[in-house]
Each structure stands twice: as structure tokens, then as C-alpha cells.
């Protein structure tokens, strides 16, 4: 057994041993003077007691010094470590400590300290007192986001203590496979016979229940593995919010939105107070009945007063696991979508209008999406005046040809971020279009062409990977194959940046798009009414038009009312034309980061942000802004421990020896742990020494003498 110190600097308190020595010396100078008649008896007594007094004084000094040394030693938190339990003393030994840094380790133990503090003490204890020939490595079971696997290295005992001090629990889930792989990699390189792996964890079911070590690279069955389980501290997650989301018919300000939170109740109470906070203010609260051991969904209805990002928070009363007592959601509230439709050939009646079917398709009550669209119809000429602010999409339906001024307006509009949806038609002049908007369209229009009535064109290849057409992927309902096309625009070779979303059976593009500046142009090579096809009579027409418009308006993607989990990456996608720009992200802690878009593949860019903190991440890009809520992993909310059999099953093929450890880090079975805290025996020793000091320093009580003194009577 070797003596180790968890806090060696506290040994400086041993300097206090000078105090009793100083007292001992100074006391001799503080004497009183008494004229006494029986000095000769004093001399006699001193002669008789001189040896005893010297011994007593020396003993008293020693006892007092010993008491102070014991006190200093107590402050240094000594432990007895038995490396011989695994290692032979005096020979090199390598220990990898896999420390659970997952979120469940932040649960508070009975002494109000996080479990992780106990785990850290335990890790220190393992290394303290180790000989100079021993090496230690720390592997964090829940790694920091963005760190690579092979980051651990070997330390001596002091370096290891520093690494342990720098470790912390974080909002992440354990990754045992990664940790064990790292441990075996380290041990493989050590090249010595004495090796071991020590795992310090709470083995909470929420994190460890879904791990599997089926294939471990460099697995070595000869390496003994000990799992020190911190538990028995009564840390119990009474209740937690494990999921939160929002839904609603509209994302517009003032319209009702339903926030739905899932509450997992692991405590004894069936009724839980649940609160909803909006932008830092309590918006609603209620008592919800959630039977113990079950989960239940709680719904709150909100009417966000203004457009923009709203910060939503669902809260529960604090318990010993505060990490999941609140859950966040970024709620995107949008203004209504505005569409300007230019009817190039207004009919005499409503149904003969070129945009009749478009308006019908975009009516809000039929809108599958949650965003209302306000359609303004104009025409028949393309707008020559600047497009009104807030217009998300301009639709040109069977417009003969934009004039020069209109072409400039449209080009500027698209470059500034607007989107253009062009339907071809019988009134369109291909030559005029080529001259006016050749740079704006994804392909040059060479001519209009018609098909024989008995041999109409039909839709052939469809790019279901494109966002607006993804929902039509078979076997989902809806097909374009039944629609007949008799009028279409014949296109020349598309621009390099153009993407054909759908083609006719003969390969000619039907839907083709490309990005221009910050905007997008989608060209539909046929009509929006029944003049050139019968698509408007098919079931796919309404969702197709809706999705095309929403996609062009940038509102097709899921809004920010989807929560993110800490450790995941926030991804921002952009087109190639935004190369060189970046996204500004502000973390919950207030740090600002500039993320640059990187090319993923042809025509697309992406920027990613790590999420190591819990809270709201605010982002802004090219005038747009939003918020992303990052929450704790719900898997960590279940703190109930795994049984021994379950642990063995989860860790297979590793054969681990399980050791139960008390929350303070002291082993319930010191022989198994190999580390024993000396606090208790030292405390008892200190008390014994203090008692001894009292006996030595105090007056000698003679009970018989006391009994004789009452009543006082001098004998004769």
C-alpha cells in the first residue's frame, strides 16, 4: 500500500506545527512572582518531579505537534492506494481512466455536489501515490464536440491530476465504443505487461442503455477492466422535459401556435407544475397530471405578437438533475408571404384568366404548408415599376415578353434576393424573351412548339431530390405521368448553374431553375392554365404550385421550431453564388463566430457550427436572422442505473469487474477498489491525540481526594 495525497498543497498547513513550539517557548517568559513561605518544599517537589516533568513536557510538545501534523495530513486528503491489486509494485504500469463526462454526471448527489466531482476525486485517488514508473491517461467518455478520437496521451501522476482537473461534464451522451477504442489504442502503444482500464461512471440507463461495443478495434482481452460505478447517492431525476416542438396552421404573428412538450416523470408526484416562458417572460403555467414512471405531452397555445425569432422555454421545478428541468425552442414567426402574379392574357371571365388556377392553388385554406400567401394579380405587361418590398415571388404567366424597363426591374429584383416563377404560354414571344431576359432565365428559349393532339408530351424524369418535388417521390401519392402537355417552350442548352427538376419523356426540360444573385428563377416550360396542358385538373397541381412558390420564397424548409441537441452541428446551406460569404453565429455565452461557407458539392455550400452549450444560438446571414435552440440530450434524463447483467451485456466483449462506489468517491469495498481514503482513521487518530493532549495537559483528577475534601477539613 502506498500513501497518496489528493490535495498535497494543503500539507503546508503543517507549518502550523511551529505554533505549539513558539507557545512552549514564549510561555516561559510570562511568569508571575509570589513570595511564598514553603519554597523549600517546592524545591523538594521539583527535585522529585524533574524527570517526570521533563518527560511530560516533551510528551506534550510531541502530542501537540502530532495533532497539527495529523490535521495538515487530513487537509491533504490522504488515501492508501494499492497498485499491487493489479500491478506489481516497482514495475512500470499503465492505467487508462475512462471518465464519464456525460450530462448525467451533473446530477447532484446527497451532499449537493455534482456526481462528477466525486468521479474526479476518484480519478485523482487512483493516481495519487503512484510511483514514478506508472503512467496514466484520461479518456473522456463523452468527448468535446469537434474533437478527434486520438487526443489522449500518457501522463505521470502529477500531469494526470492536472488533466483530471481540466475535465468537466458537458451536455453530451457517452460514447463508450469510442472511449474504449481510444483506451486500447493507448495501451497497445505502451508495450508493458501491466496495463489496466478503469471506468468511472454513473452507468445511468439513459446514456449507457443504447451503447454497443460489438466491434472494438485493438481489443485486448488480457487488459483487466474495472468499472467504478458512482451511485447510491439518491440522485434522482424527478421529472424532465425530454422533447419540445411547435406546430400550427400559420406561422404568422398573431396566429395560434401550439407548443408541445413531452414530460417524463420519474418522481413520486403525479401532478407537476409546468411553465411556458416566451422571450424571458412567463406566458402560461398549469398543473399537469403525469403518472409516475410515464411520459405525457403537454400543449400550450401561443399567439406570438410579432414576427421574428421567439425564444420559447418549457420549465419544470428544479430537482437533483437540473439539466433537463428546462427545454428551449426557437420559434420562427413570419409575416404573410406576398406573391405578385402577372397575368399575360387576362380572359373575359375569371376562369379564363391565366392566373385563375394559380390563385386557386395558393388559397390559404388549401395550403398544406403553414404559411398564408397573399396573391396580387397584375398584367398583362410585366411590371415596369420597382417591385414592392416584401414581395417574395413574382409570377409571370403567359406574358408576351418583358419590355426593356421591365427586364431591368426584374433583374434587379432577382439580384436582390427575389424569386421569379415564369410560366410559358401561347402569347409568349420567344425571340423577345431571348432578347429581354436571356441572362435571367436558366436556359435560352428558342421557340414555342405544340404537340399533335393524339401524341401529347408527358412528364418523364423527375428529380425527387429537389426540395419542392421531394414529397412526390413514389410510392407517395401523386404522379405527373397522367398529365398531357400540348404546348411548351423549346429550350436551348441550360446555363451551367441551371438544374433541371423535371423533364418530358423526350428529355426536354419542363421545370428548370438556377440562382441569380441572391434570388432564384424557375422556368416552367408550359402554361399555368389549361391552354397548354391539363395539369391543373390533376391532384398534383395544387401541392406542386404551393411547393414551388414556397420553395422560391425560401419558406419550404422547416423553420427553426425544431430543437437541436447539444453536440450536434448547426448546418447552414447556401448556393454557390454565396461563396465567400459567411454566417454570424452568437453562442448562448455571448461569443460571436463567423462561419464561412464551404463547398459541399457542385452548386451548394454549407457552414457548420458546433453546439457545446445549452441555450439559444442566434444567427444572421445576408440580412436574414434566426435562432436555434440547443437542448440537452434527452437520453441522459434517465438516471436509473443499469444492473450488473445489463452492464456486462452492454460492454461485451469487454469483461469488466464492477465496483460500487459511494458518491463521495470512497469505495464501498476498498480491497476491490484498491484505493482507501484515510480520512476516517486519521480523524479518529486526531481525536485520540487531542484526548491524550487533554489528559496530559489537564489537571490530574484524584477522585478519592475530591471525596475527602467535602466537607473541607484538614486532617491532624
Amino acid at each position: 500500500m502506498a500513501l497518496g495525497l489528493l490535495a498535497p498543497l494543503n500539507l503546508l498547513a503543517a507549518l502550523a506545527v511551529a505554533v505549539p513550539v513558539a507557545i512552549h517557548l514564549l510561555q516561559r517568559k510570562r511568569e508571575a512572582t509570589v513570595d511564598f513561605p514553603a519554597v523549600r518544599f517546592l524545591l523538594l517537589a521539583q527535585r522529585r518531579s524533574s524527570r517526570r516533568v521533563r518527560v511530560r513536557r516533551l510528551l506534550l510538545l510531541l502530542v501537540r505537534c502530532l495533532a497539527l501534523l495529523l490535521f495538515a495530513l487530513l487537509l491533504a486528503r490522504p488515501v492508501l492506494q494499492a497498485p499491487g491489486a493489479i500491478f506489481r509494485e516497482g514495475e512500470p504500469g499503465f492505467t487508462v481512466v475512462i471518465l464519464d463526462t456525460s450530462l448525467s454526471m451533473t446530477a447532484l448527489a446527497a451532499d449537493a455536489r455534482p456526481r462528477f466531482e466525486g468521479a474526479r476525486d476518484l480519478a485523482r485517488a487512483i493516481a495519487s501515490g503512484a510511483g514514478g514508473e506508472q503512467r496514466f491517461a484520461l479518456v473522456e467518455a463523452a468527448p468535446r464536440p469537434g474533437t478527434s478520437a486520438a487526443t489522449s496521451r500518457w501522463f505521470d501522476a502529477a500531469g494526470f491530476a492536472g488533466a483530471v482537473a481540466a475535465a468537466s461534464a458537458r451536455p453530451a451522451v457517452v460514447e463508450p465504443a469510442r472511449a474504449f477504442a481510444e483506451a486500447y489504442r493507448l495501451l497497445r502503444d505502451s508495450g508493458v505487461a501491466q496495463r489496466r482500464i478503469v471506468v468511472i461512471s454513473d452507468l445511468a440507463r439513459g446514456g449507457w442503455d443504447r451503447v454497443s461495443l460489438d466491434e472494438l478495434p485493438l481489443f485486448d482481452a488480457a487488459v483487466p477492466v474495472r468499472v467504478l460505478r458512482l451511485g447510491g447517492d439518491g440522485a434522482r431525476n424527478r421529472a424532465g422535459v425530454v422533447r419540445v416542438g411547435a406546430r400550427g396552421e400559420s406561422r404568422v404573428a398573431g396566429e395560434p401556435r401550439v407548443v408541445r412538450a413531452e414530460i417524463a416523470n420519474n418522481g413520486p408526484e403525479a401532478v407537476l407544475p409546468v411553465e411556458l416562458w416566451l422571450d424571458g417572460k412567463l406566458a402560461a403555467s398549469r398543473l399537469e397530471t403525469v403518472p409516475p414512471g410515464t411520459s405525457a405531452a403537454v400543449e400550450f397555445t401561443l399567439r406570438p405578437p410579432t414576427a421574428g425569432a421567439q425564444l420559447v422555454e418549457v420549465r419544470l421545478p428544479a430537482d437533483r438533475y437540473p439539466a433537463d428541468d428546462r427545454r428551449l425552442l426557437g420559434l420562427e414567426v413570419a409575416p404573410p408571404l406576398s406573391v405578385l402574379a402577372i397575368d399575360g392574357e387576362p380572359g373575359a371571365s375569371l376562369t379564363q384568366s391565366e392566373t385563375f388556377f394559380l390563385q386557386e392553388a395558393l388559397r390559404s385554406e388549401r395550403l398544406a404548408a403553414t404559411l398564408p400567401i397573399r396573391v396580387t394579380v397584375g398584367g398583362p405587361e410585366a411590371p415596369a415599376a420597382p417591385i414592392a418590398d416584401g414581395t417574395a415571388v413574382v409570377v409571370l404567366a403567359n406574358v408576351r415578353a418583358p419590355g426593356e424597363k421591365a427586364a431591368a426591374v426584374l433583374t434587379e429584383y432577382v439580384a436582390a434576393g427575389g424569386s421569379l416563377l415564369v410560366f410559358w404560354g401561347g402569347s409568349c414571344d420567344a425571340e423577345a424573351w431571348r432578347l429581354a431576359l436571356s441572362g435571367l432565365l436558366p436556359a435560352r428559349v428558342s421557340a414555342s412548339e405544340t404537340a399533335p393532339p393524339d401524341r401529347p408530351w408527358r412528364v418523364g424524369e423527375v428529380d425527387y431530390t429537389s426540395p419542392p418535388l421531394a414529397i412526390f417521390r413514389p410510392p407517395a401519392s401523386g404522379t405527373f405521368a397522367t398529365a398531357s402537355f400540348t404546348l411548351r417552350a423549346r429550350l436551348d442548352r441550360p446555363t451551367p448553374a441551371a438544374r433541371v427538376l423535371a423533364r418530358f419523356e423526350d428529355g426536354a426540360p419542363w421545370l428548370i431553375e438556377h440562382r441569380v444573385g441572391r434570388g432564384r428563377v424557375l422556368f416552367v416550360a408550359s402554361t399555368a392554365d389549361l391552354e397548354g396542358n391539363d395539369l391543373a385538373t390533376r391532384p398534383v397541381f395544387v401541392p406542386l404550385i404551393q411547393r414551388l412558390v414556397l420553395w422560391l420564397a425560401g419558406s419550404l424548409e422547416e423553420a427553426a421550431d425544431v430543437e437541436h441537441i447539444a453536440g450536434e452541428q448547426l448546418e447552414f446551406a447556401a448556393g454557390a453564388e454565396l461563396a465567400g460569404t459567411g454566417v454570424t453565429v452568437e453562442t448562448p455565452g455571448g461569443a460571436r463566430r463567423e462561419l464561412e461557407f464551404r463547398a459541399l458539392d457542385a452548386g451548394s455550400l454549407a457552414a457548420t457550427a458546433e453546439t457545446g452549450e445549452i441555450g439559444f444560438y442566434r444567427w444572421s446571414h445576408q440580412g436574414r436572422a434566426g435562432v436555434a435552440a440547443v437542448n440537452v440530450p434527452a437520453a441522459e434524463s434517465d438516471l436509473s442505473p443499469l444492473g450488473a447483467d445489463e452492464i456486462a451485456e452492454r460492454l461485451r466483449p469487454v469483461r469488466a469487474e464492477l465496483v460500487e462506489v459511494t458518491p463521495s468517491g470512497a469505495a464501498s469495498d476498498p480491497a476491490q477498489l484498491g484505493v482507501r481514503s484515510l480520512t476516517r482513521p486519521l480523524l479518529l487518530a486526531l481525536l485520540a491525540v487531542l484526548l491524550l493532549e487533554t489528559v496530559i495537559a489537564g489537571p490530574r483528577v484524584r477522585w478519592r481526594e475530591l471525596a475527602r475534601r467535602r466537607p473541607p477539613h484538614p486532617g491532624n
Partner: protein
Amino acid sequence: MDASISPPRGAPGRPGRYFDPVVLAGISNLTLRARHVVEGLMAGLHRSSLRGLSVEFSEHRPYSPGDELRRIDWKLFSRQDRYFVKEYEAETNLRAYLFVDASASMGYAGAGISKYDYAATLAASLAYLMLLQRDAVGLVVMGAGAPRVIPARSQPHHLHAIIAELEAARPAGATDVRAALAEVAGGLHRRGLCILISDLLDDPQGLEQGLRHLHHRRHDLMVLHLADRDELELPFQKLTLFRDLEGALELTTDPREIRREYRAAMNEHLATVRALCRRSGADYDLFVTDQPLDRGLVRYLARREG
């Protein structure tokens, strides 16, 4: 109480210093309690002294004319119907000498009065009691230099001389008890009772020689040993420089560390003194200065009875 004897008065400015009312009250109580003991030997502390007699009953004899009628024993007449007269013998008057130690060590005062004050009070009280009983009492004050001697007399006003001498003395110097006793003993021609009041911190052998000298001259001896509570128990609690009151000895020590040995040494000394007193035929009693004085008077009365 005899009207001719007034309580001893202290020196001017210190009236009645040696007759504390509490002490006197205690003495009075003891007198009443002791009366039955001494009644057969002396006329009694009250009745005989009130009548100016100092006689003791001897025998009855038949009444003869000319005898005083008040001497007829009427109780006997009631039983035997004959007149008998009580015959008395004159009581033998006691001569007592009070040897009071006035050495410097007697000046030590712990929490209460000094040993000398205690000794002087005790001596004055004894003298007062003796004079009440018509005993002759003398005083020897043993201090620095030659002993000062006041011869024994039984006149009531003799008390004032004794008290004046006690008050005049001051504890000083060292006392050689043996020499003092030997010196005084030569002048004591009639045997009597010698009462030594001292702290007995002198050499025990010299003390024994002095006592033996007196005993050889057929004097009765009483030794009233005075001690302060501090001397017996050494209650001091911190490092102390002790300076000898009668010599140049000095000692710095922690009383707590030597207390046990000191008490043992003191007890040995007390046992030695007690033993030598027994060998010398002296009655011995130890008095602690925080205790009442009456015990010394009781001790004397007991001795007087014997």
C-alpha cells in the same frame, strides 16, 4: 460574664480586631457546650466567675454550728434528714504561656488573613478565655531577634498587655524555635501549659529539641500548627517565580507540574511534625487560616479538662 473583664480592644484605630463578633459568638457557644465537661473541675465559665470563686467540690461533712447556712446541701438533707455541709478545695490555678511565632513566613496571606493575624487572634482569644477562668497567662512572641516575653499573670487587665504586644509585633526575619523555646524555658520556674502557635516551617529537629526541653521541665505542651490553604494545596495555575519569605531561595516553576510532589512533601512534613509532637508529649492540631478560630479554643478546653 465578669463585669471586671472587658473584651480585649485593639490598638487605636483597630478596635476589637482580635475579637471578631463571629469568632466570639463561636467561642461562646463552645463555652456553653464545654461547661458540662469542666464543671467538675472548676466552678464553670459563668457561675464561678460571677461569684468570684475558684473552688472545687471535695466532700460532705456534718453541719456544725457556725457554718454558713448557704453551704448546707439541702438536697442531701431532703434525702437523709440530716444537715451536711459541702467542703470545697481551692482550684489549682493554671499558668499558661502562649508562644506566638512572628517570623516572616507568618506574614503570608493567601486568599484571607495572614497566618500571623490568625495566630494573634487565636492567642488573644485563648488569653481572654484563660483570664476569664482566673488562670495566669503569659506571652512569648518569637520574631526577629530575641523573644519578647510577658510574664504570666491572672489579673484581668493583663489581657491588655498581651494584646498590645501581639499588635506591636510584625512578622519579620527567621525564627529559631528551638533557641527561642530554650531561652524562655529557663525563666519559667513554675510548671504550666505551653501553647506554641506557629507555622512550623522551621527545622523539625530543632523544634523537637525545643519541645523536649519544655517537656523535660514538666510543662504541658500544646502545638497549634498554622498553615495557609496555599501552602497545603499549591493552587497556582501558571508559571511562577516563588521567592522564599525567610531566605534567599527563588524558584521558577510551573506549579501544575510539581503539585503532586509538593503535596506529598507537605504531607510528609505534617506527618513528621505530628510525630515529633507526639514523641515530645505535645498535643498537636493543624489549623488552616480559612477556618474558624473556635476549634483552637475547644482544643484548649479539652486540654484544660485533661
